[in-house]
């Protein structure tokens, strides 16, 4: 029995690992009397795999039997792999025992579609219901919404889950039609919109009646595969921005495509996953969410792709040198935030600290900004006076000469002979 459980866990954890989302933040669910677990506002990453991704949740599929045949997915119908399925009790036991030992922050439950959408969703619902109602479990639960499941099932699941997500898979409709002809973006949009409206409705009711239960307190997220089809960065980020805006998503995840088959429509086996591109997309995502950038400033028809050698914030600054230098002692917070080398934490500290007197270079360095990068874009109380105006490509060279990015294969600066 124990051996079979190990086998199943191996198969179903392996199949679930391509789902990127592992966040456990955003839920403030409290423990009940005599219960186990609670939500943690900022989430806790309990460990990290050797590829550097966090492991916060027990991420498994209920089963990897699937009626769909999507070219980018390991569990596709036509793929010859081992199949397995957990029983409801097995998932509950695993979750409870891992949670009690502080291995995990909660459960991430997804599933291949067997029979039909409602049947699958009903099974997922049974697991979360048992955890919440019978085991008094109040830890985090991330549940996949199964496209095509009925509204009643989705509403019921939302009452027990902390986060629900549904994957967009391909950034554009044409890409999706190419690799998964049976699916369309519309299948994703409908449940996303439904859950979003339900969240709003429950919040409104909670204002009037205190006993209204929580509904998906940590919001919704989605995921796109990057690099399987030929989208530009612009198309990807415009889709993301669109979804952030229309469905109030908490996160959009970008997953660099890792070749898993010799399908002629996609990169062949052995191709390096586009890790650098993925990294740049996440940087853009962060700039949109925390730095007040509009996606059109970062990516537009003139620049449909992100630079690979420099990050998108620096790239934006170099394209818009008319905004710099920024005076640290007078500029508003939003502008300080746009300086390459200054992050959210430092920008907040600067704005607080300058109320008490002008800031000098040594103070900025101590506060923790990347001064060697930022110095080209700021002026403060004792900035050296400089006659020469550098061109943006010169500044780029200065910065690249000092940076030690692991992505640069050859150092950009010319070696000196003498």
């Amino acid at each position: 029995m124990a051996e079979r459980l190990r086998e199943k866990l191996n198969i179903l954890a392996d199949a679930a690992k391509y789902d990127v989302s592992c966040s456990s933040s955003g839920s403030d669910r409290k423990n009940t009397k005599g219960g186990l677990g609670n939500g943690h506002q900022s989430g806790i990453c309990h460990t990290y795999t050797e590829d550097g991704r966090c492991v916060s949740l027990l991420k498994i599929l209920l089963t990897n039997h699937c009626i769909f045949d999507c070219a980018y997915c390991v569990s596709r119908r036509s793929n010859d792999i081992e199949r397995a399925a957990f029983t409801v009790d097995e998932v509950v036991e695993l979750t409870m025992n891992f949670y009690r030992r502080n291995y995990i922050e909660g459960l991430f439950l997804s599933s291949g579609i067997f029979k039909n959408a409602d049947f699958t969703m009903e099974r997922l619902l049974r697991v979360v219901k048992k955890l919440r109602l019978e085991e008094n479990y109040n830890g985090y639960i991330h549940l996949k919404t199964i496209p095509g499941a009925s509204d009643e099932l989705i509403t019921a699941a939302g009452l027990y889950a902390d986060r629900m997500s549904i994957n967009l898979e391909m950034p554009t409709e044409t890409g999706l039609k190419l690799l998964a002809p049976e699916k369309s973006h519309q299948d994703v949009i409908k449940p996303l919109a439904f859950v979003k409206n339900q969240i709003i409705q429950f919040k409104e009711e909670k204002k009037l009646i205190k006993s209204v239960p929580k509904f998906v307190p940590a919001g919704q997220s989605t995921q796109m595969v990057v690099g399987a089809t030929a989208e530009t960065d612009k198309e990807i980020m415009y889709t993301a921005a669109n979804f952030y805006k229309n469905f109030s998503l908490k996160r959009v995840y970008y997953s660099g495509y890792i070749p898993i088959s010799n399908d002629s429509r996609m990169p062949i086996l052995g191709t390096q996953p586009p890790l650098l591109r993925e990294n740049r997309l996440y940087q853009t995502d962060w700039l949109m969410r925390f730095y007040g950038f509009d996606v059109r400033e970062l990516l537009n028809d003139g620049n449909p792709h992100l630079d690979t050698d420099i990050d998108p914030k620096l790239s934006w600054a170099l394209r818009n040198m008319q905004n710099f230098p920024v005076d640290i002692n007078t500029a508003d917070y939003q502008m300080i935030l746009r300086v390459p080398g200054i992050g959210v934490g430092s920008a907040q500290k600067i704005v607080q600290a300058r109320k008490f007197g002008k800031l000098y270079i040594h103070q900025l360095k101590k506060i923790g900004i990347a001064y060697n990068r930022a110095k080209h874009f700021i002026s403060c109380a004792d900035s050296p006076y400089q006659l020469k105006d550098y061109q943006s490509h010169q500044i780029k060279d200065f910065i690249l000469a000092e940076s030690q990015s692991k992505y640069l294969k050859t150092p950009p600066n010319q070696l000196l002979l003498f």
Partner: protein
Amino acid sequence: MIYIFDNSLEGLLTAVFEWFERKPPSKVAIVPKNNYQPNAFTKSFEVLTDSAKANRVWKGLAQRLGRPGIRKIYCCYLSERLEVYQDIFDFCIYIFQHQAGTEKNYGNAPVLSLTQTARKVEREKHRMEAFIRFQKTADGMFYCGIDPDFNVIPLLINHFKNRYANQQWVIYDIKRHYGIFYNLQTVAEIKLDNTINLLKKTNQHLLDEQENLYANLWKDYFNRTNIVARKNTKLHTQQVPKRYWKYLTEKL
């Protein structure tokens, strides 16, 4: 001038009180008793810990800084670093001598240094919340031994009490020889006599019979969820520094 105090937070706060009582003209260095070395050129003054005085200072700080502010001071005190006592001392005097809001003057050295140290302690506390791995013993107790960089156990109590409300657990600091025990009602401080081999590898016969099964399942899961094509050892060790590997079931 050197102020000598007895290593306790109360002593440190009393020292602040004594400073305002005396207002010495020269800068005061504050040194814990066990680190004090007599100096031929500076006078010293031994601070006698007085909880009434300490309380007055603490209340004053709480009034000016609010809860997040005094938590910062407490965190810094728990860091047990030698320089931090001076920072706390200077910070308290600075706060009392200026109008409200000065705790946000990050251009000021003690303020910034205190903020940064507090952040380090909070990070260590968060790591403990993440990296503690309980082992279930035969009598149904969940045990974990730790040796954190800073003395963070007092900061862990609430998190673990709220989360693991229906199981008995022990978290024991092997370096500092004390721990906390939750008996389903309250958390109490405990001291064990036998401190050998408490970190990990608890004797097999003391463990619950299912303990090995779940430890193995967890190891399997950890290995299976890794994507080999994306291997990034640098990032991995950055996120899970090697000094914590001894706690981690999946890394043993």
